[in-house]
């Protein structure tokens, strides 16, 4: 009885050792479940996927601006967000929507969701009748809020990522300018940008013709989304973060 128990322990230990050895061999040969994986992934930090979290602003009881008598900003934002997600996915970039329905979400809830998802980039989408073109905003941080040690005040949570946000803003604007689409980079006291602790931008889409109805038009939305997605794909290439 005592012998059989000891033999069982040896067998279990042997199985564990075999398992570890076989995993090590698989990693060294660069193949897991038939998929090609760089051998460096075992020794160097893993490449962090550039995930973009798209937040169609407003929603539910918060309609946002009335762009035309029949088109509320909240609906335009959601349409543009869905198109942008498709365009990004088509370019091999992971994108998620913070809201994919007509629901009310507070600024604090949006920031909490963004911080929980921890994307490489958070983008709040807005629409406006005031032209022309695309405006890309970074946060204007309020002067309120004291950070205590490692805890950053909620009002200025963006402060740790603001330099990165501004760098991405500059890259995005530069890439959009190459398409000759009118684009501007600005700062704005706009929530929840200042509460998000990852790189965060707000993009406001407006007409180029002076006719607000253009923003609600499918063709225009598609063109704008393609321009932004192209720019974001070059930003993603330049900013693919390395997971520590």
């Amino acid at each position: 009885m005592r012998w059989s128990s000891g033999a069982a322990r040896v067998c279990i230990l042997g199985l564990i050792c075999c398992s570890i050895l076989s995993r090590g061999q698989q990693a060294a040969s660069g193949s897991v479940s038939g998929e090609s994986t760089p051998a460096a992934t075992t020794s160097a930090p893993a490449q962090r996927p550039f995930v973009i979290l798209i937040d169609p602003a407003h929603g539910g009881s918060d309609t946002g601006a009335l762009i035309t008598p029949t088109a509320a900003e909240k609906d335009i934002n959601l349409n543009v967000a869905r198109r942008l997600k498709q365009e990004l996915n088509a370019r091999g970039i992971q994108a998620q929507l913070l809201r994919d329905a007509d629901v009310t979400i507070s600024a604090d809830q949006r920031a909490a969701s963004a911080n929980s998802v921890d994307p490489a980039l958070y983008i709040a989408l807005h629409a406006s009748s005031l032209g022309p073109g695309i405006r890309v905003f970074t946060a204007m941080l309020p002067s309120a809020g004291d950070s205590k040690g490692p805890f950053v005040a909620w009002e200025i949570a963006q402060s740790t990522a603001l330099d990165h946000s501004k760098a991405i803003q500059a890259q995005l604007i530069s890439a959009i300018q190459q398409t000759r689409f009118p684009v501007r980079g600005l700062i704005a006291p706009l929530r929840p940008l200042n509460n998000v602790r990852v790189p965060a931008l707000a993009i406001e889409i407006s007409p180029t013709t002076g006719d607000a109805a253009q923003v609600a038009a499918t063709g225009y939305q598609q063109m704008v989304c393609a321009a932004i997605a192209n720019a974001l794909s070059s930003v993603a290439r330049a900013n693919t973060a390395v997971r520590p």
Partner: protein
Amino acid sequence: MNSRPFFVLTCCLCVIALAMSFYVWQVRRQAVEESPPTPTPEVVATPSNAIRKQVTLWVAHDDIGALKAESLSIVTSSERQRQAEDILRALLSVYTAKGSPHSLPSGAGIKNVFFADPGLVVIDVNSEIVGGQTSGVLAEELTVASLVQTLASNLPGFSRVKFLVDGKEGNTLAGHVDLSNVYDVAQYLDFVKQVSAP
């Protein structure tokens, strides 16, 4: 029970009550007659502290999404707080005029401007501004920044700004620009640099 003493007592009490009423009325009448006449309030002339001041208004232009400086002469008080209110009211009168480059409803106004220590200015706008403001990030920011920049360029000496709506804290101007926090004036000046037009 014999009712006669009761009747006499009641009559006596009534007579005493009437006598006391008459006495009080006499005393009151005498006091009114002897009191000095109420002085007629004199019309106090407004101190001649009204001054004419050349001010710079930073006017928002929706068509180009920018702020432009315009010079204007206004009559105002020599007192700093009144000056601040008059300067901002002059700016809003540009926005409420017909054909304005950044239209606001006719009732849009400034209720108060307070200079609070240390270096904080509180601008209290009325709810008509909020109701009639074009909703949008840039449209709202142009309104707020034009107020801050106009005040800062004419009455410097404050570093932070807070907006109230009808004396109460508001969340946003018209759904976008945050009014719930205190912002550094320097931040608004950075924005003004981004949108200043020659």
